[in-house]
């Protein structure tokens, strides 16, 4: 932490700085107390550092996320229209038949909105689909055999995805006619789950990001960035999933759901979170020479 008034001046520089420029002698002495000989501020050792749970922090952890979450919930209605417009433009370009549907979702009198969905029906897998998807699985598996050891996590991920796909093969082999899902319902359910996720994001950040000593505007900015990013990502994903499932049949729908579904959103969310956690502290403060008029020393740097 560094003082904004005096920057990172060394004690040598501070000592020859007029007191008027440093905000008075008390502040100057506070600076001299806190700075090491090279000008860096001497803080507590990391082993001793803790956070500060001030009342205003608690309020911002609870009130602000709830407020943001409520705003996101209320924005779902216009967001549904934006998604509809996006899908109405994308779906014909992808050559998918049928219109974009618009389903009504009501969660009580306050939350009442519409969510779009594609209406193209995906086929039950035929022999061609088995061969193509099987070939893709074989290719991916072969790829995992030749990938170098340093990308082992990628190999594991690809094998895991292939494993999920193989369970679908098994399901269709055992019960070919009883697959309980269709593409329109899937696309609708996916966007509905997306809505839930968007409402959840401010609340999760409230519990995991707002407790830190980061400027409130940054906290709000990170929340809005994550929500807006994922809000735009969801219809793109739905369109892509619909295209793939339409052409490769319901055989790939479970893989889309489990591997390339909300897991992607969570990955994006964690990326935002990691980025936001690297942002600097809000208040850069120097211990006062005489805190609150007293002369008691605060915890010294160990």
């Amino acid at each position, binding site marked *: 932490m560094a003082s904004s008034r005096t920057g990172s001046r060394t004690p040598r520089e501070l000592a020859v700085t007029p007191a008027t420029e440093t905000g008075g002698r008390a502040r100057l002495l506070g600076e001299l107390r806190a700075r090491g000989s090279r000008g860096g501020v001497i*803080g507590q*050792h*990391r*082993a*001793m*550092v*803790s*956070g*500060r*749970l001030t009342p205003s922090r608690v309020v911002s952890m609870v009130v602000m996320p709830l407020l943001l979450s409520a705003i996101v919930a209320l924005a779902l209605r216009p967001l549904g229209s934006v998604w509809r417009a996006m899908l109405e433009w994308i779906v014909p370009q992808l050559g998918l038949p049928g219109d974009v549907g618009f389903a009504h979702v009501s*969660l009580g009198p306050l939350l009442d909105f519409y969510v779009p969905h594609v209406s193209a029906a995906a086929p039950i897998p035929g022999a061609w689909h088995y061969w193509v998807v099987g070939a893709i699985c074989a290719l991916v598996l072969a790829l995992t055999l030749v990938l170098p*050891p*340093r990308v*082992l*996590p*990628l190999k*594991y*991920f690809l094998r*895991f995805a292939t494993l*999920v796909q193989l*369970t*679908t093969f098994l*399901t269709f082999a055992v019960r070919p006619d*009883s*697959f*309980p*899902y269709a593409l329109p319902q899937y696309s609708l359910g996916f966007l*509905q*789950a997306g809505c*839930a*996720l968007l409402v*959840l994001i401010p609340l*999760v950040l409230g*519990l*995991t990001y707002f*407790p*830190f000593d980061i400027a409130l505007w940054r906290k709000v900015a990170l929340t809005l960035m994550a929500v807006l990013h994922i809000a735009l990502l969801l219809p793109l994903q739905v369109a892509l999933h619909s295209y793939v499932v339409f052409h490769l049949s319901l055989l790939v729908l*479970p893989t889309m*759901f*489990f591997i390339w579904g*909300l*897991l992607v*959103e*969570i*990955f994006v969310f*964690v*990326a935002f*979170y*990691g*980025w936001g*956690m*690297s942002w*600097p502290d809000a208040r850069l403060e120097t211990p006062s020479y005489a805190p609150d008029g007293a002369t008691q020393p605060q915890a010294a740097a*160990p």
Partner: protein
Amino acid sequence: MMISVLIVLLWGVVAVLVTYTVRHYIFTFNRLFGRHRQPYVDITAAEWPTVAVFIPCHNEQAVITGSLEALLAADYPADRLTIIPIDDRSTDATGDILGAYARRYPELIKPVFRTGGEPGKAAAMAEAAARVGAEVHLVFDADYVPGPKLLKQLTAPFFDPEVGAVMGRVVPHNVSSNLLTRLLDLERAGGYQVDQQARMNLGLVPQYGGTVGGVRREALSSVGGWRTDTLAEDTDMTFRLVLQGWDVVYQNRSECYEEVPENWPTRIRQIRRWTHGHNQSLARYVMRIISKPANVSGLQALDGALLLGVFAVGPILLLGWLLALLLYYMGYQPPVTILVILLVSAFSTLGNFAAFFEVATATRLDGSRNRVRLLPFLFFGFLVSLMAVSQETILQFIGRGFGGRKIKWDKTERYRNGGGAP
């Protein structure tokens, strides 16, 4: 009927995952805002007890010199310190290096050369510790480089008559090597800076980690010494001490460098070794800790049981995926729309976010900044761990059992450039 059973099972899995999530969250919140406990770190002047520092070695010529030199520079009364490297059948120059040091510092360095008996760190420790009368036994792996104040810091807690073992913080040294080392740096930070310290704050069961720590000789002898039939003698020791009424304490200020694995196969071997040993302790002690013997509080019993079950969470998570897939194929539709979607989402995704929160908090407390940006890549690290842990655990349950794996030196590769005799 079938579907009902699967749903109950799935909710059981969700309950376990939510329990661990809540636990992570409580630990992190406590570390951030709870009362910080490091009661012994300011004991800097004292009549220090006699200390023996053990360094189990097996083919450690690349690193042992650095470790010994660091210990020789330690700020500990020389007349109360004995350094005991235990050379267990090294086939490289380790024995020669130790011999040279012993000749140079005959009062201080007293190596033990093992040529027979059971191999492995636990057996080496058991044999050497039995011969030493020092009041405190500290243990360092051969690649660790203790700072000059570390021995006093690690010894200070033993002025508390209840303390049976102490554990310091392990800090990766080779952070910048590659993605794996950077991810392990993040994981270690979360594990020590938050997890262990929160346990200390809350008076739970900090884990003695087998290195950068030590045991009181009386405590060691009261639990029957080091066990040689386990791959995790540290976890085993932690629980035997706690069950006997000794305190295990963590000291966040006592940091020591280690080398973390630099390639995935080594990391997987390490994880599988830990898993096997930890699960051995799970089988041995979980019922005993749950039955809450005298001197073990209810919270300690709960924390101890959850700590023992940590490596079982991997296969449980996989089971959750399997159940979710099965139910999905069977057309299980959530009965109440959004609420259930939230819960299922929480199970499959956000439920594990607390671990990311823990790691990010730790790096922020450490004063690190940009390294936390690698957080999304932790997914991949977790995936590898999940697979390795699950594979080892399943093998234990269906085949190997909890005792029978042959003990051998299954050591982690060293990456530092080699040293030599003094």
